[in-house]
């Protein structure tokens, strides 16, 4: 650690000093300093709402800081637009990749720098050759004539990185680069990053996953509530220090449990489900992906649904909630033999869905917390035909307190909340509507460790009070917390793991059903 830190002769590649940024209602960053050395892979850790994304947006020229300076190789720079960031050779690979889907790989790489022929037309042969070469240098063998839309995520990411490298990047920001990558692609990505590192390119690596950071980063800066609260060497030994820095006030016990990891997972269910049926389907098909799903969720139970991505999880959630046309030989909702015809019908039957894409499917982002919370139960807030804003506000306020939704006011638009808090608003909506059975799809995706635990706590509470939960998840840890786990494979339930097996065999009980 000291070897890296105490070398004053090295001019930092990137020096951020005293950068602040306020949004209406939140101070996203306050006086942040950050130093990244040439050829360093610098991790940035922090809970949602800690200010990581704001920092990324500032460094990529999307947002302007309210104060503070940014220096690159000792020279102060103005990052007023994404173009000016590119001019300073800072490139960002965003979580949602920003390629043009219908253009080919080669076109995407050179889209703003196409070489011409003497006749003024584009020299496509050179474009393709250069693109191929650049990809091969990083160890990717990709058909550069393919439209980007046809590539797997890992290859799209590669295209983005090559695009940055091809324009002489000095700094590359990676925002949650592994969020959607399969493990072997992650390993490949690390190899690529190390190669870039050896060329002297500095990399800023933002992720929720510590394991990754220890594996790839040199140092880790920890953010909390818009401040930088620590700088640590990326070693397993600093694990609990980092967790402490991230969580701040959370008790010793919790962070100890987090540090232990999978050995001591909280359990979501009560272990005492009743015989009554909360949700049951037999032979559920959607004519596309689902090929006869049989599933039974009892009242008071937490049933996990696991499986490799793309085996019908998303479709299953939509069909169960009536949001996607389906057929079945049997469909029971909260004791009643009815298939919901549409989401309105499903809500009437006491179902609630917390979709995978909170921002685009779960919430009206520009609406205040209050109106999102009451959206599915407007009738309850109507007196003599008119909505009572006061009652709505009180209910939202109460939800804000009991679910610990972090916001400066319930009148704030949901868009200003962090991912974990947005998820709590989505949950509050269903608690207010009186839903008895909830379908969670990836309930903690894009949510930091602290909020994750809180959401688990809320699911526990919901079930303890007689609710039932279907938890569709791609995280094995999350599946292990359920009472039973059904594994989806090719649109069917390939097998169901009982609690006893889960406790005995752990993740292998689930994984053996994957393939």
């Amino acid at each position: 650690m000291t070897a890296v830190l105490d070398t004053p002769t090295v001019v930092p590649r990137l020096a951020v000093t005293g950068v602040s940024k306020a949004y209406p209602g939140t101070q996203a960053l306050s006086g942040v300093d950050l130093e990244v050395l040439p050829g360093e892979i610098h991790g940035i850790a922090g809970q949602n709402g800690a200010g990581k994304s704001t920092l990324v947006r500032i460094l990529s020229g999307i947002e302007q800081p309210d104060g503070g300076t940014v220096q690159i190789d000792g020279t102060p720079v103005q990052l007023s637009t994404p173009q000016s960031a590119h001019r300073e050779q800072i490139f960002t690979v965003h979580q949602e990749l920003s390629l043009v889907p219908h253009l080919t790989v080669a076109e995407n790489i050179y889209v703003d720098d196409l070489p011409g022929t003497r006749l003024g037309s584009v020299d496509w042969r050179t474009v393709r050759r250069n693109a191929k070469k650049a990809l091969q240098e990083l160890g990717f063998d990709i058909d550069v004539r393919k439209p980007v839309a046809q590539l797997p995520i890992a290859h799209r990411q590669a295209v983005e990185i090559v695009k940055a490298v091809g324009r002489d990047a000095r700094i590359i920001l990676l925002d949650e680069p592994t969020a959607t990558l399969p493990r072997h692609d992650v390993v490949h990505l690390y190899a690529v990053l190390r190669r870039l590192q050896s060329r002297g390119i500095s990399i800023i690596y933002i992720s929720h996953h510590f394991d990754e950071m220890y594996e790839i980063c040199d140092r880790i800066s920890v953010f909390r509530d818009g401040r930088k609260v620590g700088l640590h060497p990326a070693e397993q030994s600093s694990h609990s220090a980092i967790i402490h820095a991230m969580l701040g006030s959370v008790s010793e016990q919790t962070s100890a449990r987090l540090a232990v990891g999978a050995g001591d997972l909280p359990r979501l269910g009560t272990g005492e489900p009743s015989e009554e049926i909360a949700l049951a389907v037999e032979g559920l098909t959607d004519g596309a992906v689902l090929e006869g799903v049989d599933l039974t969720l009892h009242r008071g139970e937490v049933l996990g649904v696991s499986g490799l991505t793309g085996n019908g999880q998303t479709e299953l959630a939509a069909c169960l909630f009536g949001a996607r046309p389906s057929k079945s030989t049997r469909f029971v909702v909260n004791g009643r033999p009815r298939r919901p015809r549409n989401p309105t019908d499903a809500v009437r039957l006491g179902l609630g869905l917390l979709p995978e894409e909170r921002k685009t499917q779960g919430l009206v982002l520009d609406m205040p917390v209050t109106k999102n919370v009451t959206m599915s139960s407007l009738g309850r807030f109507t007196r003599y035909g008119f909505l009572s804003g006061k009652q709505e506000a009180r209910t939202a306020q109460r939800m804000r307190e009991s679910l610990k939704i972090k916001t400066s006011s319930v009148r704030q638009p949901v868009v200003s909340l962090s991912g974990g808090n947005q998820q709590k608003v989505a949950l509050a909506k269903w608690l207010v509507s009186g839903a008895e059975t909830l379908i969670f799809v990836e309930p903690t995706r894009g949510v930091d460790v602290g909020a994750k635990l809180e959401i688990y706590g809320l699911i526990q509470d919901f079930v303890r009070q007689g609710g039932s939960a279907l938890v569709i998840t791609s995280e094995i840890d999350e599946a292990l917390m359920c009472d039973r786990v059904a594994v989806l494979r090719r649109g069917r339930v390939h097998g169901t793991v009982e609690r006893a097996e889960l406790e005995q065999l752990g993740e292998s009980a689930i994984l053996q059903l994957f393939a």
Partner: protein
Amino acid sequence: MSKQKTQLAERSPSETAADLAAAESTEHDAVTPAEPAQRTSPVRDVLLTLLSRGYLFIVALIVLAVGSQLSPFFLTSRNLVSVLITASVVSVLAVGQFFVIVTGGIDLSVGSVAALSSVVGALAMANGIPFVLASLLAIAMGAFIGLLNGLFIVFGGITPFIVTLAMMSAAQGLAYIVEGSRLVPVDNSSFLSAFTGKLGPIPAPVLIAAITMLVAAVVMAFRRFGRRLYALGGNPEAARLSGLPVKRDTAAAYAISGALAGLAGLMIAAQLTEGSAIVGSGYELNAIAAVVVGGASLFGGTGNPILAVLGGLIIATILNIMDILGIAAQSQLIVKGIVILLAVLFTSGALSRRLPQWFSALGRLASRGRTSSAAS
């Protein structure tokens, strides 16, 4: 975490909301000090919405001030009343258009539907149908055409622009056919006095527009339907997955727009004392202009019927000033275009965030001044 568990544990989920509602009426306002309860009144919310677009009122005042400087005739009550009467038809159409625009849609057919309504109403009365029935018939026909628009959009999966463009053409053609080869004169005196007379000092068309606007404002702010429209305009998928009847509400919005177009057609028929297939053309664009000048985003989910009418009034006033000054109609069109562009630049264009910010900053300064003077 333990605190939140015990709080939640007191209620079973199915009872949670009912308990909440019951507890609310008895308990004291359980709010944090950061947010005193009186600040959450719905009327205040509406006022805040209007104030966040406060510059529109200031723009309106500036227009009035400029007009009064340019011509002594401008600020006479006679001229202002004539502006209001002129603007009343567009105001009614703008309110209808607002219901559609807030869903993220657009209704290009309202001008043609208004024309068709004027013809149908006039013909009905010419055939001895009492004016109330004739009016209701025309409005119902407008609503039906609007509903057709909505159904094609919702179930046909065709974009609103295309559906209502087609309907614009079809309704116009239908109006010509119904009209036959001649204009249909209107001489029903009770109809004329209902739509062009006065109630006390207030001209009937102004009253009709004002009532339409206020009812719409109440629906949007305090009725479930209004809330659902804002939600589905803000994020249709989230609204659908929250169990809101998105399709029904969308269709209803177009039906309302059509019904108000029918009403506007009757107002036109009364003002011109005839029903005619050519009277409505161009009105749809004026209505859309009014709504966007009033600050609503064409992407949906924002805006307010009162501001839509205010937007229309600002345009009408500027045109009136130019009329008084004897500026040619051709030049007026150019000015109108510029006004629309400027307005949208500030309401949903690149400068949209700036203006409300400046105004809320001004508001904060003002309130700070007030509290400090109250304290001293």
